């Protein structure tokens, strides 16, 4: 199965890496919004300020990973892109509204800061309202992203037949399994954000706040993940079979479980850098588990990566473009994170 590996599979693998980067970076930015929404206790303001400070310089760059995934999809797998955008029109449109509101509201809030306006009270009231929009959109968008992934993983996006509106445009994604994946995505992003924020916080009390939140989120991830796995066995046979009977399944579960336990242990012992690595590994392994379970299908149950692929010349040129782009991109990204995350990392 692995032996037959061509440019189509390589591009698909790179798209998955980009999706992984989006989950680890962009996902954590959405998770930050969740903690803005759930900010509580005496340090409520400080928690929100930390979230804003952490994602401010980087969220736009992190967001581009999603655009890269989409561009790779429509350039290299145009048939798949067309089918996904027809059948997932509704959740994708809703997700876009979430993306627009999240990004705009975050920027609006940052620039209504009380330091700018003379009318102190009024400015911060407006700023707070945008903060709500930012937080609610941050919490809703990952659920919609997860719903789309869930529909894909469930194999519900076969060739659209002549069925009615509901059967074609609603039923495939609005399923218990899809909702499970949506909630799992939300909890994973919130978990990542809380873990990262333990390293961003400079004040010990604030760090404790996010340590507790990370542990709570880890519990929520556990519940959502086991629930989703159960629903997969019932409602997503392909995924369920892959995740339970494939030869690599035990190793994957072992690795995912180990990173989850390591993350919790590290949070417990306040080894935050270890926790960050373990949490990122856990999220990545879940993502790769999904991809492995549906390989070689891009859109199960019928469209393989190979069948959906663009002509070879397009794939090869895109691989060249990716190589050249990476030469510019990676040094830039490293620079960005060095400038803004160095103090945080060495805390």
């Amino acid at each position, binding site marked *: 199965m692995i032996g037959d590996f061509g440019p189509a599979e390589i591009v698909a693998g790179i798209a998955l890496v980009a999706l992984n980067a989006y989950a680890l970076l962009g996902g954590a930015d959405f998770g930050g919004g969740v903690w803005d929404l759930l900010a509580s206790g005496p340090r409520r303001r400080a928690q929100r300020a930390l979230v804003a400070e952490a994602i401010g310089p980087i969220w736009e760059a992190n967001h581009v990973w999603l655009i890269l995934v989409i561009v790779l999809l429509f350039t290299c797998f145009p048939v798949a892109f067309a089918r996904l955008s027809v059948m997932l029109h509704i959740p994708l449109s809703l997700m876009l509204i979430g993306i627009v509101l999240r990004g705009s509201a975050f920027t609006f809030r940052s620039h209504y800061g009380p330091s700018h306006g003379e009318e102190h009270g009024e400015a911060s009231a407006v700023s707070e309202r945008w903060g709500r929009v930012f937080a609610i959109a941050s919490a809703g968008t990952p659920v919609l992203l997860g719903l789309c992934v869930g529909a894909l993983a469930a194999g519900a996006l076969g060739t659209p037949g002549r069925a009615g509106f509901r059967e074609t445009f609603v039923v495939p994604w609005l399923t218990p399994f899809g909702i499970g994946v949506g909630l799992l995505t939300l909890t994973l992003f919130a978990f990542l954000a809380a873990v990262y924020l333990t390293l961003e916080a400079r004040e010990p009390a604030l760090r404790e706040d996010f340590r507790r939140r990370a542990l709570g989120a880890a519990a929520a991830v556990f519940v959502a993940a086991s629930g989703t796995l159960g629903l997969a066995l019932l409602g997503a046979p392909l995924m369920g079979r892959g995740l339970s009977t494939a030869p690599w399944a035990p190793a994957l579960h072992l690795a995912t479980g180990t990173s989850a336990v390591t993350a919790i242990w590290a949070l417990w012992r306040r080894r935050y850098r270890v926790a960050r690595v373990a949490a990122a590994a856990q999220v990545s392994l879940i993502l790769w588990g999904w991809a492995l379970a549906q390989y070689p299908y891009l859109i199960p149950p019928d469209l393989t990566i190979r069948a959906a692929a*663009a002509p070879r010349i397009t794939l090869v040129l895109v691989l060249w473009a990716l190589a050249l782009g990476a030469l510019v991109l990676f040094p830039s990204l490293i*620079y960005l994170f060095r400038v803004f995350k160095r103090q945080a990392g060495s805390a």
Partner: protein
Amino acid sequence: MTDLLAARSQMAVSLGFHIIFAMVGIAMPVLMVVAERRWQRSGDRIYLELAHRWAKGTAILFAVGAVSGTVLSFELGLLWPTFMEHAGAIIGMPFSLEGFAFFTEAVFLGVYLYGWDRISPRAHLAAGWAVVVSGVLSGVFVVVANAWMNAPTGFRWVDGRAVDIDPIAAMMNPAAFPQVLHMTLAAYAATGLVVAGIHAWPLLRQPRNAFHRRALSVALLIGAPAAVLQPISGDLSARFVAHWQPAKLAAMEGQFRTERGAPLRVGGWPDEAAGKTRYAIEIPYGLSLLAFMDPNAEVKGLEAFPREHWPPVAIVHAAFQVMVGLGTFMALVSAVALWLMWRRRDLPQHRCLLRALVVAAPMGFICTEAGWIVTEVGRQPWIVYRVMKTADAVTPMPGLIVPFLVFTALYCALGVVVAWLLYQQVLRSPQMSEEDAG
């Protein structure tokens, strides 16, 4: 409203909204970098204040541009899945490159906006330049993809599918250069002149306000040369259209009959039913001369094309007249301003020029919207010129009026908020005299 019309309207609203943010995202960084450079060289703190304010404006507009651009990349599939199914492999290449340019822009804008106290002045300015360069490249790649829809090259269309695909040849399509040039100049002209107009307004009342004087000088430095060059690039574009898309040219000019020595029509209203353009001022031989550099050249009229291949003539003609008319005004005002600057005159003393700049302020954006109407509506009924019809590309999803209305409402609301924020945070006049420069 049919689903096709709803889909077209949603695309038009999304593009029309995004393009303003994209243009400012391309040109505004130049203003902010020039201001920062002047501050670094002279120590004049008013330029630093300007750089800060323009950076803040760029931040707001870039963020909205980034998210509305994301919407567009999805909408290509959400609204036109059949188009993307066939075109993706041919024209995805510039989008991939644009992805990286946009990535670079986002990275260095983050560094620029949040890095004032974290990196050296030299590195900070360099980050600004990186934003400038990657911003232009982002725009270039996206426009190249659009140009391909007007001049599809790099494949053969056999039995309803593309074969022998050559993505490089598709990028090198003949519309690419004229469109890229026209759009890039438009970004600088529109942004430069809107900023110039905004600062010319308060200078009418307080001509010695040091803040607005400096802002005006930087804005004109960027906007005026672009506005002066734009008619030349427009001429290049029109000649491309004359050669490659004669039906679009005929609609732009309200030319119904095929004739030699065709006149140039200024204004007027094309009557599709009667097959003539009424109330236009006609300049004899003008169109033949401009389009083909020969007063007796034959210009194809709409009658040369089957009726179902006509674009909506009145809309295209009217939009073209608006673009050319306002663009000409912008070029003239800019030429006067540049001449006065070259003669080292004190611009704020010329109240007439200030008033003209205020009037010209919104024109660049109106021109751009009109220009895109000419390009996009003028290409109808085709989504890929002479290859695929727009009606054949639309999604089978019913009820498209709902997303159209939702996204329109969302964008209207965002537009109001952005305008208000820019007024609050960027444009509101600070009281600054020459003493503040020290």
